[in-house]
């Protein structure tokens, strides 16, 4: 048995890097410290896809990596409008090759931000983002606001490592010296911890952000007695807490990106943060889901200029979420093949979009069988990044962290799989040119 320290968790955007594992006979047998229940489940492993597979007469049949990669390359090469989607639960090195493949075949490349914090990206492009690292939050924040998020369940180490419960240089007392405000449409495990819980009527976040902005800018007289289900007295209480804080930090989640106003909610959240600047230091950050969704946004931006929903079919990058995002493409039946890597649209896309995914040739690259496997014509099992393969990822505050390889495997890493598909595509083109 070997104890391994400083293991990095490859589950959520917290990317906790202080985990202690026990490894025996090339298997993770115990998570001793550091991981939350969700991270622990990932580190201890799940049932894997055993072999590459190709669908024949409706049934997936086992084959070699070479055969699966060749078949995948054939599908993409023949396709007129391929979609390459996912990329958030793998490392930046694989993502980089993915963009190269997309450029080579004139594909649309999109990542899970488009069903997660895509609206946040649009808002940030509109009005910027006053933000900081999670280290700064830990060391400075004395007022933490979670808006439309339930980190006690979804990012279970977030409060302990980085925000309300953590102890830092100027926050040595931990939560004793801090205040927690939770804004949500329902009571959650997170709201139960709050000093102030503000229950917003579903779909009314925009109005509540606006009311708080008005109060912080000295216009409380224009705020009615109740806004979005929240009494004015409670809004005044939250505004007072903001004014009295030395450092306010707002984290927001899908509760505000998934609702009617979408990116406009986030524009208003950022403007609320700017209004707080009249009184104190204040920052804001999206709670990113997948451990490297921030990384694929980085890679796509370095390589194409845009973070997600990029159409490369014109020979240059064309960015238009709403047209080139994966759910839209599938809903409009506007792609004729799909390569899904390190994500699971079968579970997380609207049913109306899945009808087209079920019809077109689909390649799946993933360590685990999931609902997407049901649609896949080619299944290529991958090594688990952060356990069986190393590489760089970006935490939710855009700090790069290197995932470590903990155990050996015969599964190929995502980077090698995508590279080999690209090589095969180029070989097919060369052959056709002869």
């Amino acid at each position: 048995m070997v104890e391994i320290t400083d293991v990095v968790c490859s589950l959520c955007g917290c990317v906790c890097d202080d985990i202690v594992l026990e490894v025996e006979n090339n298997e993770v047998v115990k998570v001793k410290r550091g991981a939350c229940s969700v991270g622990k489940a990932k580190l201890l492993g799940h049932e894997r896809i055993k072999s590459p597979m190709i669908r024949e007469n409706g049934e997936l049949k086992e084959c070699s990596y070479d055969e699966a990669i060749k078949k995948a390359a054939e599908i993409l090469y023949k396709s007129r409008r391929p979609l390459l989607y996912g990329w958030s639960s793998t490392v930046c090195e694989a993502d980089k090759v993915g963009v190269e493949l997309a450029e080579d075949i004139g594909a649309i490349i999109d990542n899970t931000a488009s069903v997660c914090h895509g609206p946040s990206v649009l808002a940030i492009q509109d009005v910027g983002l006053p933000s900081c690292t999670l280290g700064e939050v830990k060391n400075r924040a004395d007022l933490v606001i979670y808006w439309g998020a339930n980190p006690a369940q979804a990012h279970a180490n977030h409060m302990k490592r980085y925000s309300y419960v953590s102890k830092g240089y100027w926050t040595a007392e931990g939560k004793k010296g801090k205040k927690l405000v939770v804004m949500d449409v329902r009571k959650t495990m997170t709201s139960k911890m709050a000093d102030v819980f503000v229950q917003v009527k579903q779909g009314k976040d925009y109005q509540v952000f606006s009311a708080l902005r008005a109060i912080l800018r000295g216009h409380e007289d224009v705020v009615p007695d109740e806004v979005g289900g929240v009494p004015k007295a409670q809004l005044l209480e939250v505004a007072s807490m903001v004014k009295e804080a030395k450092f306010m930090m707002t984290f927001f989640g899908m509760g505000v990106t998934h609702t009617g106003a979408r990116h406009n909610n986030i524009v208003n959240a950022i403007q609320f943060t700017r209004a707080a600047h009249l009184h104190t230091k204040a920052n804001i950050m999206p709670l990113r889901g997948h451990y490297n969704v921030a990384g694929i946004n980085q890679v796509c931006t370095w390589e194409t200029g845009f973070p997600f929903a990029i159409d490369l079919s014109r020979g240059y990058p064309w960015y238009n979420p709403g047209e080139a995002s994966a759910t839209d493409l599938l809903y409009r039946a506007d792609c004729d093949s799909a390569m899904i890597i390190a994500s699971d649209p079968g579970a997380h896309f609207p049913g109306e979009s899945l009808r087209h995914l079920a019809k077109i040739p689909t390649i799946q690259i993933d360590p685990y069988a999931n609902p997407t496997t049901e649609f896949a014509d080619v299944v290529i099992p991958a090594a688990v990044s952060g356990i069986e393969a190393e590489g760089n990822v970006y935490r939710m505050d855009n700090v790069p962290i290197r995932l470590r390889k903990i155990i050996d495997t015969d599964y190929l890493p995502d980077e090698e799989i995508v590279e080999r598909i690209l090589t095969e595509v180029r070989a097919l083109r060369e052959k056709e040119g002869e």
Partner: protein
Amino acid sequence: MEGMNVRLISGRTAVQGQNLDSKLTEKYFDEVAVCNLNGNDMEKLNVAKDDYVKVTTAYGTVIVKAKQDDGNPEGLIFIPMGPWCNAVISGDTHGAGMPSFKGVDATVEKTAEAVLQVKELMRTYME
């Protein structure tokens, strides 16, 4: 009674997260194919824990198990993010790139129909 008008939202739960990489298991099914309702709404619907409910939107119908969660205000139902919730979500993003996963007008009613397993649910998209 006929279906009750509600608003549907979805989101993560800890058990849903623990089974992100094992979505074909009973644990995931038991956590995610579930509709969390306020107790008063369950009473109005004459629904007890583990009864099945049919959730219908303009975009589809899905059967899930009922579970009481008084954290939800009356008139708001919560189905953990996953295949069952997405069966009744529109693919239309109104040009914004993001589907409306939350705040969807729905009706909920008691049913004797069974919940589809995940593979069966995916097969409905192939028809």
